[in-house]
């Protein structure tokens, strides 16, 4: 695991918190505005997850599809995306930066060349949205050669063999999808999530980060209480960045919202699993 993820999760674990990881699309709504967004997010984030825009994002919902299309229309190239990462890295030497891409962008450049370029841009992890673990070996190997953590998605329908593979190939963190989303109010959902996270932990998977349908502080708190090491919030963040651009949301309101999301990662009461190791040994 790269130093930054390791130190981040270790520090959070000591303070009884989980990681708040906002997501946005590189170059959205245009490369210049994106620089400001990245700084705004980084100020309230434990780590960042950044999507490289792709013409055919089959794993994205409408909000992120639209953001990606706008980024491409505004001239965001892969190189420009990496430049944005490198700029962010210069100002934030310790912030873990994750990249979410689609396979064709990786193979087009050459798998090794892509991971090398990512490493050079200061990226810590790469998740290829349309490469499942059964196709993941060559991608994970190239990532490790470049000093990048390969991240895999653990969906709720993955059989045991896939979980084993995800645990073996993955590094940095594990991107966990849950069946029903996470709401603090839904006890049943919380229990299902907890069991799912335990199944991953038993197999020695990298720290579990919940990455779907996280849009308010209650969901953040619910996810952390269920045992997640962190949460990624994507559509909710991008929606607010769009409102910010349109002048419908003030900058201080945006900062307040980000802070409320981050504050919600402070696990409370007996739901904290003491000694839960976020660090993969």
């Amino acid at each position, binding site marked *: 695991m790269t130093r930054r993820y390791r130190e981040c999760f270790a520090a959070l674990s000591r303070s009884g918190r989980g990681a708040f990881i906002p997501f946005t699309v590189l170059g959205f709504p245009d490369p210049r505005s994106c620089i400001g967004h990245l700084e705004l997010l980084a100020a309230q984030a434990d780590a960042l997850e950044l999507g490289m825009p792709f013409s*055919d994002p*089959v*794993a994205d919902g409408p909000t992120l599809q639209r953001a990606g299309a706008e980024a491409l229309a505004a001239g965001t190239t892969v190189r420009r995306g990496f430049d944005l990462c490198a700029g962010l890295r210069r100002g934030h030497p310790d912030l873990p930066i994750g990249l979410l891409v689609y*396979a064709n962008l990786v193979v087009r450049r050459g798998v090794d060349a892509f991971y090398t370029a990512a490493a050079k841009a200061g990226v810590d992890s790469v998740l290829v949205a349309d490469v499942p673990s059964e*196709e993941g070996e060559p991608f994970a190997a190239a990532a490790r050669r470049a000093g990048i953590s390969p991240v895999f998605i653990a969906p709720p329908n993955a059989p045991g063999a896939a979980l084993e593979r995800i645990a073996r190939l993955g590094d940095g963190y594990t991107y966990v999808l849950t069946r029903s989303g996470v709401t603090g109010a839904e006890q049943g959902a919380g229990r299902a999530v907890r069991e799912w996270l335990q199944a991953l932990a038993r197999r020695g998977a990298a720290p579990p980060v919940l990455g779907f349908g996280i849009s308010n502080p209650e969901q953040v708190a619910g996810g952390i209480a269920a045992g997640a090491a962190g949460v990624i919030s994507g559509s909710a963040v991008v929606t607010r960045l769009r409102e910010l651009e349109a002048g419908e949301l003030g900058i201080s309101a945006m900062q307040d919202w980000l802070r409320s999301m981050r504050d919600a990662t402070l696990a409370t009461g007996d739901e904290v699993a003491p000694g839960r190791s976020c660090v993969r040994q």
Partner: protein
Amino acid sequence: METSETKPGRFGCWGGRYVPELLVPPLVELEAAFESARTDTQFQVELNELLRDYAGRPTPLTRCRNLVAQTPARIYLKREDLLHGGAHKTNQVLAQALLAKRMGKRRIIAETGAGQHGVATALAGALMKIPVRVYMGVRDCERQQPNVFRMELLGAEVVAVENGSGTLKDAINEALRDWASSYADTHYLLGTAAGPHPFPTLVREFQRVIGREARAQILECEGRLPDVAVACVGGGSNAIGLFADFIDDESVRLVGAEPGGEGVETGRHGATISAGSPGILHGACTHVMQNNDGQILESYSISAGLDYPGVGPEHVYLAELGRAEYVPVKDAAALDAFQALSREEGIIPALESAHALAWALEEARRVKRETVILVGLSGRGDKDLTHVRGLLGGVKP
């Protein structure tokens, strides 16, 4: 060589299953259902009955009487245009609909470009009482209005996809997104021999009937195998169906007619094998049209059914092996062939199929000795009438 699959889901280095992890289990489920159905006599009997009594198999093999009378070539048409639904699509749709029922799925989703696959899926859904939703690019909906109405008449729900370029690739994206949240009770009935494993294999096996019949029919007519078999290639389902039973017959030249559009040098085409490059699209490692970054480009063709910036992975492998050749055929040549078949033989072909015929006509003019050419006439041209009428500026004298 029964099949050119080198290991499950791989054709050399092509193919595979590049989908979000979430979609792997439903694809594995489909693969298992497909494998068990292949050896299940009851399934085969039911499918064969449907193909015969409902869809109209076997389809005839027609020798062209007038088209190439002045040349040493003889052209035979495998008449998938006479299949119920108006194109070869019905073959594999009936099979996949049976598979859907076998897996206990209660809903079917599909993508469509020209609308032929959507129509076939809609009619199968009506027949088997399974609700169908078809994703279709908004631009294709405009180009192929009659097929939108056909699907709706058959009881399907048509969703116009506005994302991206509003064409087939965007419809596939949207169907995949639907499936990611609906796979528990929904079958994704992919329409071509592309996409993630097992689709390229499954679609080939359920389209193999085209070449199997044609092979027996031409042996009966000619007492020998054809010199060439040619079919159009968009995603490549009718071509792989025609080729499959000829792959072992080394004397038979296999030719895929790709949509050359306005010419590959203009960039306005869909000839992914002739002029594309290796990439990963819609779940398979294959040839795609893309820019230097790997962003997928919009394809172009006079025929919506060939307008796709990817292609089935087995075709890329057959090209790599040199077993099949893939040739771009321009819009203009296809349009000429469309009219020629109408006037000379009384058959109005689909614009897609006209690409294969155009290549055959050129070949007939080229050859110096007796040559038997088998053309996969994958569909009929009714759906193209408005489009062609516009292009020709009305009926010529």
